[in-house]
Structures are given as structure tokens and as C-alpha cells.
């Protein structure tokens, strides 16, 4: 009888499902609140909301559709051929064959910061990128672990999931801004106009609701991102059968990360959600843990050692 050693982490899946459910709930509540406000005041902030949804949708779609090009441009990475980086391609070839997935494009970014990311809206357009700092610091086994983690992001379609999840936050954020500016600039023009007297409280309420929705969805998205990282760690470790190599890579990368000058770190922050390890200093633990895109090093190492024990049984 062929047995399997694959044991799904039901707890993680349940938490991820709950997070997605809450995001959906916030989204529905947001829409209902907006409709309710518009009906109650019988005024046309509708155009602003419509515009925010269209613009937000456009932004989300654009960042999804061009995610590979945007990320490569932002990180200054260059695609490499098998002749230029035979070892890197060889590792990815083998991981693809193990995982039965199409081969992503491979890119290298000239940066001393040891990191890696995967992007692209689907597995056909996927790019896996590593920095020269990562290649220099990790041995082949650790590099394989990191690449398996990134390939798992591709397999899980994390770029799509996170972009769709972020859509709500983008729209709410835009509404806050629009409402704020129209108060600022449109306020006194409308001051003496009785026909439009309801606009002020409506926009204030829209501003308030949007701000609350933005805050909640922001926290939920960060939570979701941390769960997706754990899921990618898990799938990557099971793919290579070497959870300890990934753990070793994580400690090396995290250790090196805090030794890098801050200027580089700030440059990389916009890309954090896609990175293997976040380019932030991890000295303030209390509040930063609920804002961070990645789980703490301890949490990731703990999961990997559980998988290691599982494999050894």
C-alpha cells in the first residue's frame, strides 16, 4: 500500500479560511454601509464612490497584470538564461519536476541584501528572483529551500490572492483620500449652497466608515500574508524533504538582514509582501508583529522543526 507522509496543517487552513471570511464580511458590511448612507441622505456622493471603485479596481488589476514587470523593474532584477546561471536553473528545473509545475522565469537582482521573491499573475508568467547577496551567502541546499518556498508561492497563486484581498483596502483608502480632499477643496464652495447641504455630513460619514474599513482590512491582509508565508514554508519544506535547510537559510538571511544599512532596507519596503524575508528591523516586537507581512522567525522555525520531526517518524 502506498502511504503518504503529507499531513495538512488544518489549524493553519482554518485560520486562513477565517481571515478570508472576515475580509469578505468587512467588504459586504462596507458596501451595505455605503448604500445605506447614500439612501439615507439622498445625495450624490455616489460619483466619488463609483470613481474610487473603478480606480481601485484598475490599480488592483494593473498591479496584478503587470506584477512580474513591476517587481522586476522595482528591484532592478534581470532575467537570466540557463547559460548565465546554470546552477540556479538546475535547482529550479529539479524543483519543477518534483512539484510537477511549469518552469517559471528566473531573474537575479544585483543587491547585497540577501532575499528572494516570486511574482506573476499565474504560473505561466511567474518569475522567481534572487539577489546576488542571497546567492553569495547561502549554500546550494539552503538556496534550494528558499527557491522551494518561492515556488510554493507561485503554486498557491499568492500574488492573485493577495491582490484580490487588497482590493478592499485600496478602495477604502482611496475613499478616505477623496472624501478628505473634497471636504478640503469643495467645502466652502458648497457652503452657501442649500441644494447640496447634505454633502458635508455624508462625506464625513463616508470618510469615517472608510477609515475604519481601511484599518480593519489592513490588519486582516497582514494576517493573511503571514499565514500565506507559513503555508509556503510548509509546502516548500515538504517539496524538498529538507525543512532544516530552509530553517538554516531563514536564520542566515534574518541575521544578515539586520546588519544591512537602513537606506537599502527602505528601498525594498514596497516589495515586502513578496519577499522571502521582510526587509525590516525586527527589534520592536510588540506592535510590529500584527503589522508585519511575515511571521516571526521563531514561529517559522518552530513550524519547520515540527515538519522535520514528522518526516523522521
Amino acid at each position, binding site marked *: 500500500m502506498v*502511504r*503518504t*507522509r503529507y499531513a495538512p496543517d488544518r489549524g493553519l487552513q482554518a485560520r486562513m479560511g477565517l481571515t478570508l471570511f472576515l475580509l469578505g464580511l468587512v467588504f459586504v458590511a462596507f458596501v451595505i454601509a455605503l448604500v445605506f448612507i447614500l439612501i439615507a441622505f439622498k445625495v450624490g456622493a455616489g460619483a466619488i464612490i463609483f470613481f474610487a471603485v473603478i480606480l481601485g479596481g484598475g490599480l488592483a488589476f494593473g498591479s496584478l497584470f503587470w506584477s512580474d514587470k513591476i517587481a522586476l523593474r522595482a528591484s532592478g532584477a534581470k532575467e537570466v538564461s540557463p547559460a548565465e546561471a546554470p546552477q540556479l536553473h538546475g535547482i529550479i528545473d*529539479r524543483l519543477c519536476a*518534483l512539484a510537477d509545475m511549469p518552469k517559471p522565469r528566473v531573474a537575479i537582482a544585483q543587491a547585497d541584501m540577501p532575499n528572494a521573491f516570486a511574482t506573476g499573475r499565474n504560473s505561466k508568467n511567474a518569475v522567481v528572483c534572487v539577489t546576488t547577496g542571497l546567492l553569495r551567502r547561502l549554500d*546550494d541546499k539552503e538556496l*534550494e529551500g528558499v527557491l522551494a518556498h518561492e515556488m510554493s508561492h507561485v503554486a498557491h497563486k499568492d500574488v492573485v*490572492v493577495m491582490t484580490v484581498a487588497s482590493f478592499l483596502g485600496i478602495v477604502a483608502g482611496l475613499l478616505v483620500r477623496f472624501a478628505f480632499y473634497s471636504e478640503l477643496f469643495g467645502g466652502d464652495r458648497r457652503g452657501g449652497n442649500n441644494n447640496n447641504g447634505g454633502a458635508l455630513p455624508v462625506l464625513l460619514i463616508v470618510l469615517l466608515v472608510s477609515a475604519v474599513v481601511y484599518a480593519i482590512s489592513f490588519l486582516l491582509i497582514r494576517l493573511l500574508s503571514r499565514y500565506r508565508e507559513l*503555508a509556503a514554508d510548509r509546502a516548500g519544506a515538504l517539496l524538498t524533504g529538507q525543512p532544516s535547510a530552509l530553517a538554516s537559510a531563514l536564520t542566515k538571511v534574518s541575521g544578515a538582514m539586520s546588519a544591512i544599512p537602513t537606506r537599502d532596507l527602505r528601498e525594498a519596503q514596497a516589495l515586502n509582501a513578496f519577499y522571502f524575508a521582510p526587509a525590516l528591523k525586527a527589534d520592536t516586537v510588540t506592535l510590529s508583529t500584527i503589522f508585519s507581512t511575515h511571521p516571526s522567525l521563531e514561529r517559522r522555525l518552530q513550524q519547520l522543526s515540527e515538519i522535520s520531526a514528522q518526516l523522521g517518524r
Partner: protein
Amino acid sequence: MGFLDTLLGRTKPVPPKLDALFSLPTAAVTLQAAMGFVPTGSGSVCFRAAEGRAFHDIEAEVRELLSMGEEAARVEVTRDSYGFTWLVCRHSSDDMEALVTDLHAVNISLAEGGFGPQLLCTLVGFTDSAGRKLGIVYLYKRGTFYPFAPQAGEHRDNALELEVRGNIGSDLPIEADLSRWFPVWGAPGL
């Protein structure tokens, strides 16, 4: 991968397809008749060793299993530069069936131990009178084969590979996606 799998971020390790290996002897006959390539008698199973005691025990078991029996195969274990383990079996060059049976025994042992997803590929070596080398690579997860013809200095004889594809295409399921024909430089038994 289903919608729910995507939503919950889960991928299951892919189990290997094992049975297609048994069509290799037929393909070997075709290769010899059509192109003059004869089996070298060596074949290998390539897998990614998992860490921990369990895998180590199974690997030791497999080696013991192969070195027993009447017409015991010569078994050799090597690690390549990617950290993959190659278990090489050698038989006489006219006994393709025995070779395939041995390779299958390795696969079954790993799969029964729960390490089927660790199997990467199997490679059977061929050579012709001009000394050209050819490997037929079996991808476990796809259940397909592809030819690999290495030349000196990490070059591939793509023309030969495509010619082989044309000749054995009716005997073996050939991998249609050419980007999955990855090179296995320095594979033992080639």
C-alpha cells in the same frame, strides 16, 4: 489545484506514476532497430533524500534488497551537485527487463515508505557504435519520458534528441512540454 486549495494555500506533494516504466524494454528494441542505439545495461533512480531517520532506513533497505537475489545487480549510490541521490543499477546490456524490474523495486520501496513524492526521475543509458551517448529520462510526476543526449562540455545534441523522439514516440509517452526536458549533466550511468 482546486479553488479551495488556492484559497487555503495548500499543495499536496505529487505522488509518482510508476507503471509507465515497463514500456521501456519495447522502446529499447525500437531504438536498436531504428537508430542502432543499444542499452548500456545501467539505469538509475534519482530522488531527493528527505532528512531524518525514516528515509535513511528505507534507503538502506533498498540497497540491501537490490544486492540480494540470484542475478544480483551491481548497485552504486552517488550524490550529485544538486544534493540529489542517484541509485545506479547495472545489468548485462541485453537484460532490459531485469533492469526495469530493479528500478521498479526501488520506486515501490520508496513509495510504500511514504516517500514517493521524493522521486525525481529515472535514467536508462544507451550508446551507439560511434560512441554517442543517450539517456532516456522518465519523469515520475508527469509519467512521461524524454531523451537526453549530452555532448562534451555541457552541450546537448538536440537534433539527436528530436530524432529519438520521433522514433520512440509510439512506444513511450514523450513529454510534450520541451521546457521540462531539463539537462541531467553528470548523471551516473551515462
